[in-house]
């Protein structure tokens, strides 16, 4: 049956990528070894695929294709009978290719192409169910916000080209790493715009939760492997170019701090599992950016990998639940522990990783992020100590909140009085299980920081305990914080003001264009017509009048002549 064909293609792709990438999995550092294209004015742009992988890029590529493959397999069952399955699957493959292009090249133009093609793909996939208004709206919102951010990247590339005389990332970084970094503030801020939009950080965060109308596998793909991951990757990748601009780093830190906290809080109060997970993604990504701003990109990317694994797990699991109860609303779930054991176990692992409980990978990577933040809090990071400290404590708070909502979701979804239900088909379970395994497997070889291990575990356990206590007392975990449920109205500008302003401006322009700009032509035309009519009137066939006009003309002419000469 044909729908497996696309999974087959994806598998082939995955294998090829694996063969290409695995040799590059070395020890983790950003090394710089590339011929510097020296030349004052950069060359005309071209799209030569200068493939090159750093160890971390290799990891991300592998994650991408891995999750992508799993998603394809999952989709065969989840969406296999959809009339438009073909375009859906093909777009997924294009999506993966784009992500590979972003990660696997040093040619900034190729990177840009991949970057924006991803935006297009997510637009198409989120809008896959374009019959529904929410899907249309979510898709449009995602596309617009990310595209506006992408323009930042375009300009950033232009500035890089002008600064380093090349559009080759390695070349640029080579110069930069030799202490020759210039315009780092400009470049940094522009890159910041790009990644903030792509990875849904404050203030461009609201498109990610609104993208939930998209099919759940797509959500998993976007959140774990492709779209948002690209943002973090780019920020880490271009770190050398803006490292020595404190302004940029502080800005990044501030954004990260705000985002991680509000993301976690919003996740805490959601009544919809998918949306809650989406917000948790936002806040987790913020954690990674915090690490980068603290001068430790590796920590950030590590957490990216880990998060990719367990967030994909969680979303796919959520898909299984939806497949059973037919909705992603928490109210519809509950007590599925018995009915769907496999899903239960794997998602438990996922939530544990999210909460940062050992021995899941989430525990290790989050700890190294916290470690990095602590460093900068002590002032030996790239950030000013004050900012570092604030960021550090915010991060701790976030860890707590994260653990709380993880526990909450887990409890609401699976406990309470048992419900009827059945496991999802095998094609859907398999990826979930595999990811659950991965969530453990990836923790092999992760650095272990004892102190933070204890601290964070303590926080997590405490949080879980609180939730469990509340649950056992009140029997329900509905949090009534209207302000948070309204998500602080942060979205109002995008939903109300900007569209309204644009619409009004557009109306104005149309009116002016019709009645104002055209004035000269219309005026001329009507003037000509009027004069013409007037001439007809003067043309009374009365010769005496003619003679009068003639005489007047003669006098005028003579007077003019006399004055003139």
């Amino acid at each position: 049956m044909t729908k497996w064909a696309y999974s087959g293609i994806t598998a082939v792709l995955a294998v090829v990528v694996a063969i290409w990438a695995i040799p590059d999995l070395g020890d983790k550092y950003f090394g710089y070894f590339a011929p510097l294209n020296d030349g004052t004015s950069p060359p005309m742009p071209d799209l030569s695929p200068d493939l090159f992988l750093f160890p971390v890029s290799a990891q991300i590529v592998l994650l991408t294709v891995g999750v992508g493959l799993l998603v394809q397999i999952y989709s065969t069952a989840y969406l296999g009978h959809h009339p438009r399955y073909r375009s859906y699957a093909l777009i997924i493959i294009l999506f993966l290719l784009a992500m590979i292009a972003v990660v696997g090249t040093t040619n900034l133009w190729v990177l840009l192409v991949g970057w924006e093609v991803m935006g297009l793909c997510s637009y198409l996939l989120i809008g896959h169910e374009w019959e529904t208004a929410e899907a249309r709206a979510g898709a449009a919102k995602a596309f617009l916000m990310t595209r506006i951010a992408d323009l930042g990247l375009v300009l950033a590339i232009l500035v890089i080209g002008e600064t380093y005389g090349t559009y080759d990332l390695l070349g640029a970084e080579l110069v930069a790493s030799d202490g020759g970094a210039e315009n780092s503030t400009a470049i940094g801020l522009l890159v910041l715009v790009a990644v903030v939009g792509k990875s849904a950080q404050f203030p461009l965060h609201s498109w990610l939760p609104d993208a939930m109308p998209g099919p759940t596998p797509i959500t998993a793909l976007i959140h774990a492997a492709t779209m948002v991951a690209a943002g973090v990757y780019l920020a880490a990748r271009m770190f050398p170019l803006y490292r020595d601009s404190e302004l940029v780093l502080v800005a990044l830190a501030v954004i990260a701090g705000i985002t991680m906290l509000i993301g976690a809080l919003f996740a805490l109060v959601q009544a919809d599992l998918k949306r809650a997970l989406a917000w948790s993604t936002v806040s987790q990504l913020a954690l990674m950016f915090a690490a980068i701003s603290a001068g430790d990109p590796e920590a950030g990317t590590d957490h990216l990998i880990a998060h990719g694994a367990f967030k994909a797990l969680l979303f796919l699991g959520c898909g299984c639940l939806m497949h059973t109860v037919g909705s992603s609303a928490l109210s519809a779930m509950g007590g599925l522990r018995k009915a769907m054991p496999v899903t239960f176990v794997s998602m438990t692992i996922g939530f544990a990783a999210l909460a940062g409980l050992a021995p899941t990978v989430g525990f290790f990577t989050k700890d190294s992020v916290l470690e990095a933040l602590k460093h900068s809090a002590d002032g030996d990071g790239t950030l000013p100590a004050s900012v570092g400290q604030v960021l550090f404590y915010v991060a701790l708070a976030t860890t707590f909140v994260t653990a709380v909502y993880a526990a909450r979701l887990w409890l609401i979804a699976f406990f309470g009085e048992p419900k009827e239900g059945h496991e999802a088909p095998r094609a859907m379970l398999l990826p979930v299980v595999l990811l659950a395994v991965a969530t453990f497997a990836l923790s092999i070889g992760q650095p272990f920081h004892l102190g933070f291990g204890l601290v964070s575990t303590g926080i997590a356990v405490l949080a879980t305990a609180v939730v469990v206590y509340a649950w056992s007392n009140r029997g329900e975990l509905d949090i009534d914080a209207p302000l948070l449920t309204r998500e602080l109205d942060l979205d109002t500008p995008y939903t109300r003001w900007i569209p309204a302003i644009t619409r009004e401006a557009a109306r104005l322009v149309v009116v002016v264009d019709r009645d104002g700009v055209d004035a000269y032509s219309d005026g001329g035309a009507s003037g000509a017509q009027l004069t013409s009519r007037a001439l007809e009137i003067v043309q009374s066939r009365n010769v005496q009048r003619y003679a009068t006009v003639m005489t007047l003309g003669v006098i005028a002419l003579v007077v003019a002549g006399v004055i003139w000469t």
Partner: protein
Amino acid sequence: MPLLYPLILAAVLFGIGVYGVLARRNAVLMLLGVELMLNAVNLNLVAFDAWLEDEIHTGQSLTLFTIAIAAAEIGLGLAIILALFRAVRTIDVDQVGAES
């Protein structure tokens, strides 16, 4: 004799002729106005001729020609006016053009 006498006279007559052309209702009388203008011109020509003592009498010759031309014009003009009268039963300059 001062040259200005005939010149001023010519100017005045020319003005009167203009008035005649522009004011008279009867076509023939408009024509007479033109004649008056031509005569004014003749006065000028003759006066200048006499003043310049032109051997080849440019002025006076032209005067003669003007008189002849005037005759021709009058002839043609009267013919047109008569035809006009026969055609539209009036030579009232306001009515000639008015009704089509």
